[in-house]
């Protein structure tokens, strides 16, 4: 891979450079420290020049060439500084033959070697910062087993076409996005959604490429391939995010852009200043080189992007897609977290919550299930699911009574299922059930009454139930100091019940879809608002909020809708996204602080002549390594 190639490249240069630099260091230090010359004095400079040549001009060639370019295109970069510093040092060695100046060529070689070492470490750490996204890239299956005519053949993933029927055996990866057409199994989608529980898949279930089939054989028809798959979309999104800017970065970017030319000027001024005042050309050269090599635009320019990269990569691994760097910065200002109700706090699909029956419950469910089977209504689906019948009774004269219920005959019995309105219309007595009906309705549930031959048998209460994790997550958010609110079109009573059970502090009920934006604006008068919604019905509300968090429901997520997109529908992701954003922003601030502090302190020290060029270069290398390593420490956050 590209990144690995870069690391190997720097490593090779590092080894080569030090093979020549170590002898130089031995020659120089034995002379300086022990007043002991390995060679006669007159051989020393030539030896260092010969040894130093490959270090600067072969192993450092890329840097010299890249840096030199800056001087005629005026696109200066880091290399320009190092190139100038090392070449000047090398030339001083040649000039020292004529006794013009002292010999700094050995120092030049050391600077180049230390620079290369620093780059090697930095590149490696940068590679580590992008490890999550690289892992995502590797997630994809390489091969697919498909049915062709009567045979099963294995093909390369790139040869897969839409409509191909893939066979996925237990333990294998699903090659691409598709729909199950035969078989059933549990599928581990954790690598995409962050959801650790395996998801049951049966005929017609959509499946995501790169997820792992656990126990049964699945026959899957491919619906999306190549760049259109869910996994590809996530990868593209994360890459895009990592290129976005965080507002706090603006100053650092501005400085980075003028940094190199500014340092060139400062170093020249220092050189002439020292020369003018001290008349000491050697000290002036030393300071010139020290200023050139100490300045480090890298730590400044990398401070924010590297932290953003690590943060967004960590998010992607947990099914949290941060789409804009800006959201990370805004997140720390958020005071209120507003939730949509349906599909966000609740599961979005009604479920049977209570059954109250004067006959055997199984019998009640059998007739209710058989009738509702013929209806398409959401409530009917909940009842069918709860009944879980293997065989349905034959129903005759089935009729849907719009907005009220259904009726039909099973054998000789006339069955009516519906709301109280329908039952009253049919003049069926509800005696003995009124209390229960009132209780369920006060809890915000919808009650369906089942009657047989004009006599009420029982009632089934249906409600859009709260997600299992809702209470825990919302209590946590309240506890760490957020105000939580819920915006819903439901009536006050139902909404309050949901709020009470989920821990939501404030309810804004009876809100028409088009008024959601207005309600968010009202909340914004009291502080910055993050809105959590499903991204499909809530797009305008998401747009109005300061930070928008869009919840996904598996394969189709409205990626464009949110600043942060949660792939799974779990509310735990909301808390995780908030924690991650805050932690990432903290890292960003730390990094910027270090980078600024380093340059603000180190450059004046070098100008003042207090730093030897070698110390300056070591300090420079360490400063960018510190920033990159600090960003990688973000992984410690759970």
């Amino acid at each position, binding site marked *: 891979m590209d990144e690995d190639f870069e690391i190997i490249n720097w490593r090779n240069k590092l080894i080569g450079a030090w093979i020549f630099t170590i002898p130089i260091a031995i020659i120089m230090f034995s002379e300086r420290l022990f007043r002991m010359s390995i060679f006669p004095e007159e051989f020393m400079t030539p030896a260092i020049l010969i040894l130093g040549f490959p270090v600067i001009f072969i192993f450092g060639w890329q840097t010299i060439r890249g840096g030199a370019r800056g001087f005629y295109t005026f696109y200066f*970069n880091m290399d320009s500084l190092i190139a100038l510093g090392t070449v000047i040092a090398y030339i001083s060695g040649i000039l020292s033959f004529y006794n013009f100046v002292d010999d700094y060529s050995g120092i030049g070689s050391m600077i180049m070697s230390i620079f290369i070492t620093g780059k090697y470490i930095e590149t490696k750490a940068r590679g580590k910062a992008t490890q999550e996204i690289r892992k995502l890239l590797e997630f994809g299956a390489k091969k697919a087993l498909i049915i062709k005519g009567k045979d099963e053949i294995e093909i390369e993933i790139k040869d897969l076409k839409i409509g191909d029927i893939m066979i996925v055996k237990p333990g294998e990866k699903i090659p691409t996005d598709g729909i199950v057409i035969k078989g059933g199994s549990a599928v581990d989608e954790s690598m995409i959604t962050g959801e650790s529980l395996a998801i049951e898949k049966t005929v017609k279930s959509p499946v995501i490429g790169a997820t792992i089939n656990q126990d049964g054989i699945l026959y899957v028809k491919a619906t999306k391939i190549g760049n259109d798959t869910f996994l590809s979309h996530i990868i593209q999104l994360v890459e895009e995010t990592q290129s976005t800017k965080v507002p706090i970065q603006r100053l650092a970017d501005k400085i980075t852009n003028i940094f190199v030319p500014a340092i060139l000027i400062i170093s020249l001024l220092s050189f002439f200043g020292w020369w003018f005042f001290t008349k000491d050309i050697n000290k002036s050269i030393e300071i010139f080189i020290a200023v050139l090599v100490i300045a480090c635009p*890298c730590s400044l320019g990398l401070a924010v992007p590297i932290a953003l990269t690590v943060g967004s990569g960590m998010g992607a691994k947990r099914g949290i897609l941060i789409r804009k760097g800006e959201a990370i910065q805004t997140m720390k200002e958020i005071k209120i977290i507003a939730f949509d109700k349906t599909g966000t706090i609740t599961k979005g699909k009604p479920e049977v919550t209570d059954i109250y029956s004067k006959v055997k419950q199984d019998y009640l469910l059998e007739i209710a299930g058989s009738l509702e089977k013929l209806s398409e209504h959401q409530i009917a689906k909940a009842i069918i699911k709860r009944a879980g019948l293997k065989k349905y009774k034959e129903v005759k004269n089935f009729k849907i009574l719009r907005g009220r219920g259904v009726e039909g005959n099973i054998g000789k019995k006339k069955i009516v299922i519906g709301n109280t309105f329908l039952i009253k219309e049919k003049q069926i007595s509800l005696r003995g059930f009124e209390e229960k009906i009132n209780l369920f309705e006060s809890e915000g549930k919808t009650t369906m009454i089942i009657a047989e031959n004009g006599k009420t048998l029982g009632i089934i209460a249906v409600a859009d139930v709260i997600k299992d994790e809702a209470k825990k997550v919302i209590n946590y958010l309240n506890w760490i100091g957020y105000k939580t609110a819920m915006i819903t079109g439901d009536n006050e009573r139902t909404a309050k019940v949901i709020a009470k059970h989920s821990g939501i502090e404030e309810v804004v009920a009876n809100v028409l879809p088009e008024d959601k934006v207005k309600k968010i604006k009202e909340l914004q008068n009291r502080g910055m608002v993050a809105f959590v919604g499903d991204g499909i019905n809530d797009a305008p509300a998401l747009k109005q909020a300061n930070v928008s968090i869009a919840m996904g429901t598996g394969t189709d997520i409205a990626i464009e809708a949110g600043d942060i997109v949660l792939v799974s529908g779990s509310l735990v992701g909301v808390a995780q996204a908030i924690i991650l954003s805050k932690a990432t922003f903290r890292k960003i601030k730390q990094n910027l602080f270090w980078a600024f502090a380093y340059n603000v302190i180190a450059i004046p020290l070098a100008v003042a002549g207090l730093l030897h060029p070698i110390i300056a270069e070591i300090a420079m290398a360490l400063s960018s390594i510190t920033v990159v390593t600090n960003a990688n420490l973000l992984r410690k956050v759970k």
Partner: protein
Amino acid sequence: MKKIKLSIEGMHCSSCAGNVEKSIGKIPGVGNVSVSLMTKKGFVDADEKVSEEELRKAVARAGYRVTKIE
């Protein structure tokens, strides 16, 4: 407006990324440019009339190479 994704080779420090941004930004018809050293990618918002050739040249002018345009 179209969104173009560039893969760029040879960048190794943050002033490099800044240089590429500056160079691409000079092309008439180019709006927002965002180049990342981390991903080695550049995202460019540009008019329809901005050609791939112009983008390649701009990146080359700053001293780097475009390996892929999407």
